[in-house]
């Protein structure tokens, strides 16, 4: 039956019944019955029209629908009549559903939404496995390895490579540093993307001399004014000329980095020179992904590539010995892998909030519903079945929860926008978070589930009211009996317990976060400005390069407000890192078995400017220059690992890093410096060695400038100092060291903030729940309290009785919460930094806070009870 035909069919039925009545009336009249009587006789003979109509509706299958609609109208009327209750319930639910929806929106955007490429489930991330270290340790590929894997595999339609980089380009007269990805010629093809303008890269553009570039949409728009004839033109970057192959569509983005790459260049760039990266099997720096052939599984691809890796490990033991197998994962899982635990934890926390909200609203509904015992008793007495009453109550709670869901969506909208501002930039795909069909469906499911959950208890309880008793006793004195009290107490205990779990979780994360902030990074981050200078590779010869920095540092040091200035690489917390193999003289090993540790370079004064302490020997000075003997400085962790019982000073180390002047000289250890947190505040300190920059010109080092005052103030002075030396080199990545530290703590800050917000909501709701229950109890027991006082109970006795009741419930709740937390916080252990999941201090402090709040929540109704006037009470009851 179509619902829109209801009116028409009903009118039709009316007409039919009416015509029958008229015929009957006519027949009666023909028999000589007077007109007035004839009509009654016809009606009598016909029967009850309303009943007949209902029976016909039943025959049509509408009855169920009609009853349902009736229930809804009735429920709406009820809710409107008790507006205060309805609005409170809707708002509490909106908080729970809104928070849950906002977190689900993050999960949906980051984890669930497929990558924006055709058949993206066939895209896989590919790496080799480092078997020299315990556990599953992925390692990037080198060009020669990549080329071999590309040529020899049988399971992939294509394998593409990309590597990070940057290039200097003069834009509108100003040199700019651009984010550039060097990609294989099939990069776009494997992703299933095509340029919107121009053509894809060609195979020959992987060869030296055939430099080609693909522009991103935004770069093309901003720098070339969306000019249509850009294809085929040449643009100059880092002193080389690149042919523009095409422009990618606006929505194309890969890898999903922040900031996104401005352009992609062909491998030709890495194939240039005497011994270019494309022929170095030890140059493990490529990101690699592939597209599975149809029907091939990830495991099959991994097995296939592992055979190739095994062969290469045997063929090239010097470089590949430990990389004898491949690692393959679905690309989406790989991209989102790091964010999974945090999002899982947040989902868990927000589910607890929702559960608490349900218990809270359930309690509210129960207290509210007990005023309606009379109504339900009456309905039962005149024939409503228990199912009818349960249905009625469930429809009411569903309406409330759907309204809560609707308001919750609006709330989630705001929450998502707030979160996007807070969220660490490292979480990929976050920017797209919003409310889509998936999220709305989720809200609907959650609202209905919540409505059924919190509506179930009251519906079950209230539908059991025995009509006789309830009607006799009257609505006023009905307390709902023991069972209802037990249920209400249970709901309050559940709220307290859930609140306790959330508070403990948030307390642990907060303590851990404070620990992180108090970590000594091994250097002094205050008043430290850092930046990089983009001297194109090959532009300056070895000694000119060093000279440039020497002159620059002299100029910067002379600036007013500058205490010290130097340069070094890698900058701690900056995500730049290189692990390079070496050997210690007197400890011969095969080349493939050489150890590798973090390597760095430093200008004289670098350690002093960073305030990294000297442990033994000396820092780098001017004597470690071009003419001086090759030297090296190691850190304490390095000494601990490699020279545990020897004096490291005077030892000789040959590092496999060098430039065109100092190829791989044997170097003398001249100093030992303190350990620094290079990879983030929570990372372990690792062994590291440093070479003097003059003897290893391998990259553009970071400028580090220590100032007297606000480091940001001298930013422009540094830029002009650079431009006085050379107008064509850009200054980029200007940032204070404090910013780097803050970014390093961004993820824990985000988690801690959100969970603490949830815990605060939980605490307030649990307190409201307790307050509500006790207030209700005081009203219910007014007579009893009045009697007690009339018989001589003191006000303090009454006060104590109510507060004690509240405290008992809170204690039971807190105890169950602690028991639950002991089980649950173990799941947090991966996110806690130097804090045990069962940290007794956190547990104790949380319990104290919760009990304190509970006493506060109990004291208001208790005070109200204590102020009852026994005379008035007894008279009124």
């Amino acid at each position, binding site marked *: 039956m179509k619902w829109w035909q209801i009116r028409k069919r009903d009118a*039709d039925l009316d007409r039919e019944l009416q*015509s*029958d009545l008229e015929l*009957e009336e006519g027949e009666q009249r023909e028999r000589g019955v007077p007109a007035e009587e004839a009509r009654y006789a016809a009606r009598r003979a016909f029967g009850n029209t309303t009943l007949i109509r209902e029976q*016909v509706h039943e*025959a*049509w299958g509408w009855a169920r629908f009609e009853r349902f609609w009736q229930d809804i109208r009735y429920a709406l009327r009820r809710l409107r009549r008790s507006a205060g209750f309805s609005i409170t319930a809707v708002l509490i639910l909106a908080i729970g559903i809104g928070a849950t929806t906002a977190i689900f929106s993050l999960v949906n955007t980051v984890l669930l939404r497929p990558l924006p490429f055709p058949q993206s489930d066939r895209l896989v991330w590919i790496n080799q496995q480092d078997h020299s270290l315990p556990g599953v340790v992925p390692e990037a590929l080198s060009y020669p390895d990549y080329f071999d894997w590309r040529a020899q595999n049988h399971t992939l339609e294509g394998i593409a490579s990309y590597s990070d980089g940057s290039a200097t380009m003069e834009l509108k007269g100003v040199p700019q540093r651009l984010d550039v990805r060097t990609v294989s010629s099939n990069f776009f093809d494997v992703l299933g993307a095509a340029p919107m303008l121009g053509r894809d890269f060609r195979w020959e553009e992987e060869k030296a001399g055939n430099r080609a570039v693909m522009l991103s949409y935004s770069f093309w728009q901003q720098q070339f004014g969306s000019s249509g004839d850009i294809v085929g033109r040449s643009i100059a970057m880092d002193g080389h000329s690149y042919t523009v192959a095409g422009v990618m569509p606006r929505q194309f983005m890969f890898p999903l980095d922040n900031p996104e790459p401005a352009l992609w260049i062909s491998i030709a760039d890495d194939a240039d020179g005497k011994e270019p990266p494309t022929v170095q099997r030890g140059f493990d720096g490529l990101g690699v992904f592939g597209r599975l052939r149809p029907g091939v599984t990830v495991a099959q691809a991994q097995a296939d590539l592992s055979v190739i890796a095994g062969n290469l490990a045997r063929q090239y033991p010097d470089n590949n010995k430990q990389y004898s197998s491949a690692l393959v994962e679905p690309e989406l899982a790989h991209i989102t892998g790091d964010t999974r635990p945090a999002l899982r934890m947040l989902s868990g926390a927000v589910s607890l909030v929702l559960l608490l909200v349900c218990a809270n609203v359930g309690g509210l509904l129960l207290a509210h519903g007990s005023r309606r015992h009379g109504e339900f008793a009456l309905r039962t007495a005149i024939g409503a079945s228990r199912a009818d009453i349960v249905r009625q109550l469930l429809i009411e709670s569903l309406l409330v929860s759907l309204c809560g869901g609707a308001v919750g969506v609006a709330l989630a909208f705001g929450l998502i926008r707030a979160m996007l501002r807070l969220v660490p930039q490292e979480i990929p795909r976050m920017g797209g978070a919003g409310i889509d069909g998936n999220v709305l469906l989720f809200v609907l499911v959650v609202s209905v589930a919540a409505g059924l959950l919190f509506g179930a208890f009251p519906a079950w309880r209230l539908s059991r009211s025995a009509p006789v008793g309830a009607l006799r006793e009257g609505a006023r004195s009905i307390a709902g009996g023991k069972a209802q009290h037990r249920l209400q107490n249970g709901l309050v205990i559940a709220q307290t317990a859930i609140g306790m779990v959330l508070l403990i979780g948030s307390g642990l994360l907060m303590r851990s976060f404070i620990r992180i902030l108090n970590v000594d990074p091994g250097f002094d981050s205050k008043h430290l400005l850092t930046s990089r200078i983009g001297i194109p590779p090959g532009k300056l010869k070895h000694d000119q390069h060093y000279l440039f920095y020497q002159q620059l540092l002299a100029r910067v040091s002379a600036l007013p407000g500058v205490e010290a200035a130097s340069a070094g690489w890698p900058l701690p917390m900056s995500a730049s890192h290189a692990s390079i193999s070496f050997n210690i003289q007197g400890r011969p090993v095969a080349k493939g078995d050489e150890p590798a540790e973090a390597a760095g370079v430093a200008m004289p004064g670098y350690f002093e400017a960073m305030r990294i302490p000297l442990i033994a020997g000396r820092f780098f000075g001017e004597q470690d220059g071009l003419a001086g003997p090759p030297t090296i400085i190691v850190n304490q962790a390095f000494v601990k690992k490699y020279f545990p019982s020897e004096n490291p000073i005077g030892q000789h180390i040959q590092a496999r890093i060098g430039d065109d002047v100092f190829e791989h000289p044997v170097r003398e250890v001249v100093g030992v410096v303190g350990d620094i947190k290079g990879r983030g505040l929570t990372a372990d300190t690792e062994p590291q060695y440093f070479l003097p920059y003059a003897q290893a010109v391998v990259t553009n080092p970071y400028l580090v400038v220590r100032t007297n005052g606000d480091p940001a103030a001298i930013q422009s002075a540094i830029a002009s100092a650079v431009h006085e030396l050379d107008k064509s080199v850009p200054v980029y990545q200007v940032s204070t060291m404090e910013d780097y530290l803050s970014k390093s703590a961004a993820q824990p800050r985000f988690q801690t903030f959100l969970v603490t917000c949830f815990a605060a909501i939980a605490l307030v709701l649990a307190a409201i729940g307790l307050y509500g229950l006790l207030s209700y109890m005081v009203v219910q027991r007014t007579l009893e309290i009045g009697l007690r006082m009339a018989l001589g109970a003191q006000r303090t006795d009454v006060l104590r009785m109510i507060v004690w009741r509240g405290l008992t419930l809170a204690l039971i709740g807190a105890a169950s919460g602690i028991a639950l937390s002991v089980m649950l916080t173990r799941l947090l252990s991966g996110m806690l930094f130097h804090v045990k999941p069962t940290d007794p201090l956190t547990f104790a402090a949380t319990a104290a806070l919760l009990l304190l709040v509970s006493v506060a929540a109990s004291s208001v109704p208790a005070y109200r009870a204590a102020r009852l006037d026994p005379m008035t009470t007894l008279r009124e009851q």
Partner: protein
Amino acid sequence: MAKQAQQQRTALLQGTLDMLILRTLLYGPSHGHQIGKHIQRTTNDFLQMQHGSLYPALHRLEQRGWVVSKWETAPDRNREFKYYRLTEKGRKQLLVEESEWKQMAEAVARVLWPAAEES
């Protein structure tokens, strides 16, 4: 007492009303009033139900596709009535119900008048 007897008869009728309507429509299309009157007349007013109760049954039959209905002008009067007409499916259903009824009536008769069976 009379009311109770009436109720009993109506209860008996409920199960067989569908069949009686279908059988009545075998003579040709007719509207609700005609059907009611016909059943009343042919049973010599034994089945004197409130003929309004016919309509739920009629609509149930229509819902099942055993009859179809149409508003048509009556040949003898200048007004429209809703005429019900037996469908092919309804015809088959009537045969099924008739045979079931017959079987049941025979079975009941065998229990009530065993002597008649023997002779």
